[in-house]
C-alpha cells in the first residue's frame, strides 16, 4: 500500500519538523517534570524504602518520616513481646543544628540507631563504617551535604547542638525531601543532644519473624500500643509521599505542568495537522472523487498523527533520558521508569490522535465536486 499520509508528511519537511518538535517538547516537559516529581517523592521515602523494617511504629498522626514526633522509648519493649516480631529497635529522626567552620549554622536531619547494620541504614557507605559510630561522638555524613555545608572530609569535626562530633565516614544517596542533609549517629548520642529525646524515641522499627502474618502482628501491636500508629513499610511510604503531594501543592503543581505539556502538544499537533489538511483539501477531494471514503482520509490524518507521536515521543524520551546524568550532577533526580515511559507513550499517541480529530470535521465536509473547480 502506498502511504499518502507518510509521503505527505515527509514531503513538507518544515511542517513535519515543527509537528515532531511540538510533540517532543510536550513529551520532554511531561517526562522531566514528572521524573523530577517522582525523584523528589523518592527522596521523601528513601530511608523507608532502604531500611529493612516490615513495620514502623510512629507517634499518632506523624505526617511523614522527616517530621518525627517523640514517644516513650519503652514502647519498643512492648513491640518485642508481640508474637511474630523477631526484632524491634528504636530509631530517632530529628532536626538538629550543625555549626559550620565558617561560623554559619545549618540544619541537619539526624538518624540515630543503636545498631545500624541490622537495619541496612545507611545503605550506601562510601567511607568508614557504621560500626565506628559507637566510638565516641562520631557521625557519618552524606556526600550531598557538601552542597549545604561546603566541602568536608573524614577526620574533620563538626559541632552539633554544642557537641563536637568527628566525621568518621561518608554515605551517598541519603538526602531528605527537604534537602536537609542526613547525618547518622549513635542512638545514645542523639538522646544526649536534645532534652526531649531523653527517654524517648521517634520510631520503633519492627522486623517480622519468617512466616509471621503481618496483618495479625500489626493488629496486635496496635492493641498493645494504643497511643501509636503501626504502619507497614508501604503504608508509611504512601503516607509520607501523600503528605508532600497534598500539603505542599506539589501534586497540583505537577498536575498543572502535565496538563500544560499535553495542551502544548495538542495545540501544536492539531494546528499543524489542520493546516496541512486545509492545504491538501484538493488532494482529499481527489481521493473522494476516485472513490475514497471519509474513513480513508481519517486514516491518512490518523497515520500522520501516529507518526508524529512515535517520532516525537522517541526524541522527547531520548532527550529526557539523556538529561538525567546532567541533572544528577546538580543533585536533581529525574526518576524515569519503563512503565511510566510506556504510559507517556500511550498518552502521546492518544494526544496526537485526539489532535487529529480536529481536522476530521473539516475533511468530512469536503465536496468531491471541488476537483472540477480550477
Amino acid at each position, binding site marked *: 500500500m502506498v502511504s499518502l499520509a507518510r509521503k505527505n508528511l515527509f514531503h513538507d519537511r518544515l511542517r513535519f519538523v515543527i509537528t515532531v518538535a511540538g510533540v517532543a517538547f510536550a513529551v520532554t516537559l511531561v517526562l522531566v517534570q514528572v521524573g523530577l516529581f517522582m525523584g523528589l517523592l523518592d527522596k521523601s521515602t528513601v530511608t523507608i524504602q532502604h531500611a529493612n523494617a516490615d513495620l514502623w511504629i510512629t507517634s499518632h498522626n506523624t505526617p511523614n518520616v522527616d517530621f518525627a514526633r517523640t514517644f516513650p522509648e519503652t514502647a519498643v519493649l512492648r513491640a518485642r513481646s508481640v508474637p511474630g516480631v523477631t526484632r524491634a529497635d528504636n530509631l530517632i529522626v530529628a532536626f538538629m543544628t550543625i555549626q559550620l567552620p565558617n561560623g554559619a549554622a545549618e540544619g541537619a536531619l539526624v538518624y540515630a540507631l543503636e545498631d545500624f547494620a541490622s537495619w541496612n541504614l545507611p545503605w550506601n557507605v562510601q567511607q568508614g563504617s557504621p560500626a565506628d559510630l559507637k566510638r565516641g561522638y562520631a557521625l557519618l555524613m552524606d556526600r550531598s551535604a557538601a552542597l549545604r555545608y561546603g566541602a568536608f572530609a573524614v577526620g574533620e569535626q563538626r559541632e552539633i547542638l554544642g557537641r563536637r562530633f568527628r566525621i568518621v565516614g561518608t554515605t551517598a544517596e541519603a538526602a531528605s525531601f527537604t534537602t536537609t542533609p542526613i547525618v547518622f549517629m549513635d542512638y545514645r548520642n542523639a538522646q544526649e543532644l536534645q532534652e526531649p529525646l531523653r527517654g524517648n524515641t521517634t520510631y520503633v522499627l519492627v522486623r517480622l519473624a519468617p512466616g509471621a502474618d503481618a496483618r495479625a502482628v500489626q493488629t496486635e501491636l496496635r492493641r498493645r500500643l494504643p497511643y501509636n500508629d503501626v504502619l507497614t513499610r508501604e503504608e508509611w511510604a504512601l503516607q509520607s509521599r501523600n503528605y508532600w503531594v497534598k500539603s505542599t501543592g506539589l501534586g497540583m503543581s505537577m498536575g498543572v505542568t502535565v496538563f500544560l505539556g499535553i495542551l502544548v502538544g495538542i495545540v501544536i499537533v492539531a494546528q499543524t495537522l489542520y493546516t496541512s489538511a486545509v492545504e491538501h483539501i484538493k488532494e482529499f477531494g481527489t481521493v473522494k472523487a*476516485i*472513490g475514497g*471514503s471519509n474513513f480513508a482520509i481519517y486514516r491518512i490524518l490518523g497515520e500522520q498523527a501516529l507518526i508524529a507521536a512515535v517520532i516525537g515521543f522517541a526524541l522527547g524520551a531520548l532527550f529526557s533520558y539523556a538529561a538525567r546524568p546532567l541533572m544528577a550532577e546538580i543533585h536533581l533526580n529525574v526518576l524515569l521508569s519503563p512503565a511510566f515511559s510506556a504510559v507517556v507513550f500511550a498518552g502521546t499517541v492518544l494526544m496526537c490522535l485526539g489532535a487529529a480529530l480536529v481536522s476530521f470535521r473539516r475533511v468530512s465536509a469536503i465536496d*468531491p465536486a471541488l476537483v472540477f473547480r480550477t
Partner: protein
Amino acid sequence: MNDTVLGVRDVTKVFAEGRQRVEVLKGITMDVAAGELVALEGPSGSGKTTLLSIMGCILTPSSGELAVAGRPVRSSDEAALREVRRQSIGFVFQQYNLFPALTALENVEYSLNVRGVSGRAAYVEAKRVLARVGLGDRLGFLPRDLSGGQKQRVAIARALAGSPPVLLADEPTANLDTATGAQILDLFQELAKAEDRGVLVVTHDPKVRRVADRVVGIRDGRLVDGDEEKAAA
C-alpha cells in the same frame, strides 16, 4: 443502445441558494457507448461541469435516471455512488490533481489501492498503465519534475488503472500547448477505440472535434446540436 456504458435520462439539477432556485440542468438525456469518444461542449455556466459531476456519480441529480456500465445508479446512496466511482469510472482533471508527494508510479498505485487493489498486483498494474501512456521511463518522477503533458499522462494512467469502462475528462487539454494537447487527444481516441471504453470529454477546445465520434452541445442546461454549438462559439 445495447453497448451504452454511461447514460442519463431526463436529468435535472436544481441548486437552492437561499430562497432562489437555480435550475442548472433542464431534462438532459444522453448516452455514451463503449468505444465512443463524446465531446461535451458549452460556454461557461451552461451546466456541462454539473452534468459531468452527475455522470461521474459525484453529484446527485434532482430528478432523472443515471446508469453506469449498464446498471442503474441509486443516487441517494452515497456509499453506492462511491462504489460506482471506484469500480467503473476514471477521472481526468484539468489541473491533473496528482498527489505532489507521490511519484508517477505511486500516484497510480494509490488510485488502485483506493479501488481495492494492493501489493504486487497494484504495482504491476500501475507499471502497465504508465507504460501504456508512454511514461514507462518516468515511474519514479515526482509531478514537479514532469512537464504538463507528462502530468496529464500520469493523470490518464491513474484514471485507466483498474480498467474502468468509463473515462470522464474535464478540459484535459486546457493547460497544455497545442502539440501536447493533440497528443493527449490522440491518446483519448486510442483508449476509447482500442480498449472499448466510453470516453466523455468536457471541453472548450475545438480541436477535440477532430477526435470525437460525436459532439454534444449544452446551453443553459439543455442539450443543443453540437454543430449549432460550434457556430455559436
